[in-house]
């Protein structure tokens, strides 16, 4: 037994904002091991400058954002290459955002409509701003050369 034992003192202090009530800063950070699982071929496709959608083997419904089973009938889908040209279905320019995106503001979001595809594709639009952006305007896909395996590896520009 050691009756004189003491916890070692450290220099690390608490960042205190207020005393009554006590409000202090608490840092919180974590790494996740994230898998794209069945959606992997889509992200691999972006690296080869391909946009892959999903076509239902049961009813033929075609999804612009991948889903390995059909939302309409539940059948499995197969990968299909989407056209790299489409039109703007709707849009907005964000002047504010979540913390991770603040440094990118303002940025423009669009939903892209592809010929022969039943659902839309969320992406960024570059090269047009303000009144230059219109619903129905033709756009084409561009890809990052050094892919990051994120949906932002593809973006759209005016045709």
């Amino acid at each position, binding site marked *: 037994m050691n009756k004189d034992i003491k916890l070692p003192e450290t220099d690390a202090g608490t960042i205190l904002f*207020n005393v009554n*009530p006590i*409000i202090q800063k*608490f840092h*919180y950070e974590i790494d996740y091991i994230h898998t*794209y699982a069945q*959606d992997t071929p889509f992200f691999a496709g972006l690296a080869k400058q391909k946009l892959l959608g999903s076509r239902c083997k049961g009813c033929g419904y075609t*999804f*612009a*954002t991948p*889903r390995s089973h059909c*939302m*309409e009938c539940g059948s499995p889908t197969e990968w299909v290459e989407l056209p790299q040209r489409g039109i703007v*279905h*709707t*849009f*907005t*320019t*964000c*002047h*504010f*955002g*979540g*913390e*991770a*995106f*603040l440094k990118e503001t303002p940025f423009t*979001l*669009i*939903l892209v409509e592809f010929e022969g595809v*039943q*659902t*839309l*594709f*969320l*992406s*960024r639009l570059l090269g047009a701003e303000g009144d230059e952006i219109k*619903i129905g305007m033709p756009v084409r896909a561009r890809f990052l050369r050094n892919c990051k395996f*994120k*949906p*932002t590896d593809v973006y759209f520009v005016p045709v």
Partner: protein
Amino acid sequence: MRPVYMVTGGITKFAKSHPDKDFRLMVKEALDYAMGDLPGISLDEIDGSVCSYFSDHFTRQLMAGAMVQDYVGLSPKPSRRVEGGGATGGLCFQSAWESVASGRMEVCLAMGFETMGRVNTWKGNEFIALASDTNFDFPVGGFYTGYYAMMLNRHMYEFGTTVEQMAKVAVKNHINAVHNRYAQRPGRITIEDVRSSQMVATPLTLLDICQMSEGAAVCILASEKAAQRLGGTPVLVKGVGSGTDAMRMADRPHGKVLLLPHEKEEDYVDVKYPGVHSFRGGRMAAKLAYAMAGINDPGQDLDFIELHDAYTSSEIQTYEDLGLCRYGEGGSYVDSGAPFMPNIEYGLTFSDTSRWRKLPVNPSGGLLACGHPVGATGLMQAVFAFWQLQGSVQKHLGDSTLQLSAPKRGLIHSHAGTGTYITVSILEKV
């Protein structure tokens, strides 16, 4: 299923932050208020609870519901947590309803809170955006206001809705809230104020959007026998409904409108539905709730509505989902003055005042002016609807301006994501 009554309710003041109270104390305050308003009730009478809060990120405390349960003195009775994004409170209300309707409990407490002021607004926006698909949507946009702005731009394109019509919703809800002492952001504002406030995501400005909030709300639901025993002025939960839609708004199909009893297929020959301009889950929730409550024409059969106006645009979209007007007419519905309080001066002129019956929407001020502490919001709506139907608005708000004259039936509506989970519940005076 047996009839279920709401017997009392309580809320705390909503504010950007309440650093002097944690979530347990906030719920306790709302519960004490509710119990103080119904002298016949005691903790012994409550058979169990359902707890409602949206985000584990905001609390940084898992199982927070269990901590509330013991704090308010209900352990070891049954409890559970429900979660469904922005609709968490509405789902909690309906979950408590199920406990009583099924016969499992005689008296069930629905209690909800959110503490969103523990992080900065931009971090809060990021937490909320984690409720969009984190593979495909969050990395591209990561911002709910951006998603809603895209829906709105399509609504404007399809139906001719204008930014001034949206601004009128903000004017209405902020001015209503001047008479609600629980509200976070009341104010006499104008269309110009809304349009000149900071642009957030075109065309939504700061005053088109609700704020981050902290607060709590509770409702106590009871069987008919228990309600009679407890006394007070109970209100009947006449109908409940809920619906869903694809998590990713880009996945929404373009098919046929789900029709309500007063509508015909010919009304919608040109509308591709839901697209990104409408909420199919909201229509489904309304359809089910109307069927249970025996409502054939909501515009005629309801006397007021408390709906989930996280954005001015979503209030307009929701008029259409609920069938107050046809799809595409939401903007004209605001212009007509139908959803405004009859006794308040808004500084606006209304057109077409005979086209729709007057049906006040968000007399409380809604989310836009009251705030949106997510897990408490749907329950707050139930409490305001309960006070309306009881005729006790003066007593609770210290001001009778928002008291409607003899309302018989009110609707509450709770909404998550870009319309992913939606609930509609109908309350009726007995």
